[in-house]
């Protein structure tokens, strides 16, 4: 999908948003073994420290000799042995993360997993790829990784009145109407990040439906349908009220329950939107995909409500957003869509003047005064998500951003001072 943007050298703004830092997709009681050149896992390891999750990660460095020998995977079983000696508690799952070079070395992962299962029969092993090298494949690295993380679930003949949320990096907010609505009809929502034990996580294999809330999880849910017989519904989180309503209809149809009346939620959200449009007085809006996962559909939704959307930064257009992209190009050619990674953004001038940016990166690029830096670290599905965004836009409009404070907070975040 990179055809939408000219191929170019890529520039990266500093990552200062804590939202991204705080995102987690973790299997409980698992341990991560990152295998690769020492450089590769640095960002992830330091990120783990920032979450105070460093105990979950161990690195296994491969050397030039291992690469030249052509069988670096041979060192993994002994490394697992050594790792188990170092861990206080034996993990239920060991996730072996490999990097870009693995795609070129032709590692036989199946053979490796068989070997590991024979040698460590009471531990489940999976391999996961962190390989942006294959970003241009239709199954992108993030999609493949989610599929791999869910692949450890056991198939069950039992079907419970539970729905799995698939694709949310953050826990569903308790304020989201989604939870209340499902509670009201006696259905429970399950999320990977809400599970404290592996057994609890494994219970997700007994759910009756997978609700895919982000396109990145479509592939995982399709594989789960095949392997676990759990049907799926593609109900990507949206800021468009019509799509939100359709999503709920879709879910209720799938579970064969009568949908409660949602008109009060919608009415309240419509009111909030119209108040926000008025309050922001036509200020130009700029969006990137740092604060929300899908900037293009958000741009279309905000434009529909009457916000003055001017510019959208995106890097890789994913399959689910093509329709919105084409629609915007056709119907709103004045809304510019820029490659947020093109080298040119380094010197991009702010021609919009006073504007409100949704996403830290676009705000940083333009030196904007008003930024919705991030959504709180929760998943705000449905009408609540829209209302929350409106609140944050008003807050951003009323506040002048302090870039130095953002820097200090992102660097010192949660970490202990030296004693």
């Amino acid at each position, binding site marked *: 999908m990179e055809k939408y943007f000219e*191929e*170019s050298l890529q520039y990266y703004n500093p990552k200062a948003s804590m939202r991204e830092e705080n995102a987690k997709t973790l299997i409980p009681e698992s341990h991560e073994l990152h295998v690769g050149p020492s450089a590769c896992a640095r960002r992830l390891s330091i990120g783990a*420290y920032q979450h105070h999750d460093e105990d979950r990660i161990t690195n296994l460095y491969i050397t030039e000799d291992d690469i030249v020998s052509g069988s670096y995977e041979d060192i993994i079983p002994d490394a697992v042995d050594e790792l188990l000696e170092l861990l206080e508690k034996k993990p239920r799952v060991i996730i072996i993360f490999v990097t870009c070079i693995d795609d070129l070395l032709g590692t036989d992962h199946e053979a490796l997993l068989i070997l590991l299962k024979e040698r460590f029969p009471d531990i489940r092993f999976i391999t996961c790829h962190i390989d942006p090298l294959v970003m241009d494949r239709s199954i992108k690295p993030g999609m493949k990784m989610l599929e791999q993380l869910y692949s450890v679930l056991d198939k069950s003949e039992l079907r419970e009145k539970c729905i799995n949320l698939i694709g949310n990096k953050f826990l569903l907010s308790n304020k989201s109407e989604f939870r209340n609505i499902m509670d009201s009809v006696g259905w429970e929502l399950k999320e990977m990040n809400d599970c404290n034990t592996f057994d609890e996580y494994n219970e997700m294999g007994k759910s009756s439906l997978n609700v895919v809330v982000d396109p990145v999880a479509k592939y995982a849910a399709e594989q789960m349908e095949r392997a676990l017989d759990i049907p799926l519904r593609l109900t990507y989180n949206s800021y468009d009220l019509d799509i939100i309503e359709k999503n709920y209809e879709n879910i209720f149809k799938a579970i064969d329950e009568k949908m409660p009346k949602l008109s009060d939620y919608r009415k309240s959200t419509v009111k909030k939107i119209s108040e926000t449009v008025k309050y922001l007085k036509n200020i130009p809006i700029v969006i990137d995909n740092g604060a929300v996962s899908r900037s293009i559909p958000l741009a279309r939704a905000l434009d529909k409500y009457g916000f003055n959307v001017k510019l959208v930064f995106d890097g890789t257009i994913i399959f689910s957003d093509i329709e919105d992209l084409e629609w915007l190009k056709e119907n709103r050619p004045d809304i510019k869509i820029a490659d947020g990674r093109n080298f040119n953004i380094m010197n991009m001038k702010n021609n919009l003047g006073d504007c409100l940016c949704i996403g830290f990166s676009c705000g940083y690029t333009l030196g904007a005064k008003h930024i919705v830096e991030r959504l709180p670290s929760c998943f705000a599905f449905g009408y609540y998500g829209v209302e929350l965004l409106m609140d944050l836009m008003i807050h951003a409009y009323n506040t002048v951003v302090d870039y130095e404070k953002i820097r200090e907070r992102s660097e010192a975040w949660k*970490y202990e001072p030296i004693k």
Partner: protein
Amino acid sequence: MSQLSRYLPPFSSDYSGICSSLFDLDGMVVIHDAHCCSMNYVNMDEPRWYGNKKPIFSSGLREIDAIMGDDDKLIRKIIKAYNELNPEFIAILGSPVPTIVGVDMEGIAQELENELDIPVFGFSSTGLRYYNRGISETMIKLTKRYAQEGSKVDKSVNSLGLNALDFSDNSNAEDIKEVIKFAGWKVSCSFMMGCSIPEIVNSPQAEVNVVVSQSGMDLAEYMERTWGIPYVAFTPMGLNDNKMIFSIIEEALKEGKSRVIRSEDLYDGEILIIGEQLIANSIREVLASHYGVKGVMVGCLFGKDKRLATAFDIDLKSELQIARKLKENKYTVVIGDPLLKALVDKSQARLFSFPHVAVSSKLYWHQYPTFVGDEMENFISAAFKASKK
């Protein structure tokens, strides 16, 4: 198995060292990678990235380009950016994937240079070596390319090996220059923080080189071989006896003989300093010369340079080696990055936290110590007192 790292993160790699070295110059830097290597540098290894916009880019390498060996795509992208940004030079850096498929970074650089008529440097960085190798290689390449012999400038020195991965972006780099100036010497070129291409051009005019980190040693030897410039290796630290240090520089100049500042009769005793070798050496020197503590071992975290080491200093090649060394329970005090705590806590030693960007990155770079002055002197003094308990 010595390649497992349970408690420590991976350290900064060679490509980060190269980018960091080139940060202050008006060049354009391209890491030939998919995304992750550039993100490592930008987000974890460059304390100056936030608030500064520098033309340091990722090539956006994809699998098909790597497999097909499509170097032309990289060249096209670079030329496009060059035409818009007009950099003074271009540097292209390797990463693990180009290493695996055998991309000829020097060859691509040559091809680009023929076409663009500006200097283009190719670096065969791999992501498998530490940052100091990258810094060292960068300084040598730039010197070989730009430096021109000229008549000596009286009482002038180059400082070799200043970099943000060892010294962070607080006042350390400026403080070191001030120490030199205060002693009546002029800094010709401050490789590689706050320097410019014209300063590199004139760097052979310096009378002496002051090496301030391990990464400066190869350049120091090169300049000694090529232009007969002697070097003195030490990092200004604490309330150094500058008079003594600069008399050593005078001696080096007079005798035309290089030297590493190090006390006599050192031995493997009660203190272990784990970190960058020359900085660790310099802390040891303060302990020895100001406090009379000579039982100090240096554990080299990023490779041991024999030119700087005592007979007993140790090359800590893996976490396992660090753990084993600490298990000897020989040391009462360990000085090193705060992330060593989990390992040090398994011994009887007390850790004195001394952050290092190349280890703990942004977790501690906002608490970086000021090397010159009271803060460091007090820190070393506290470590000395603890070692005597």
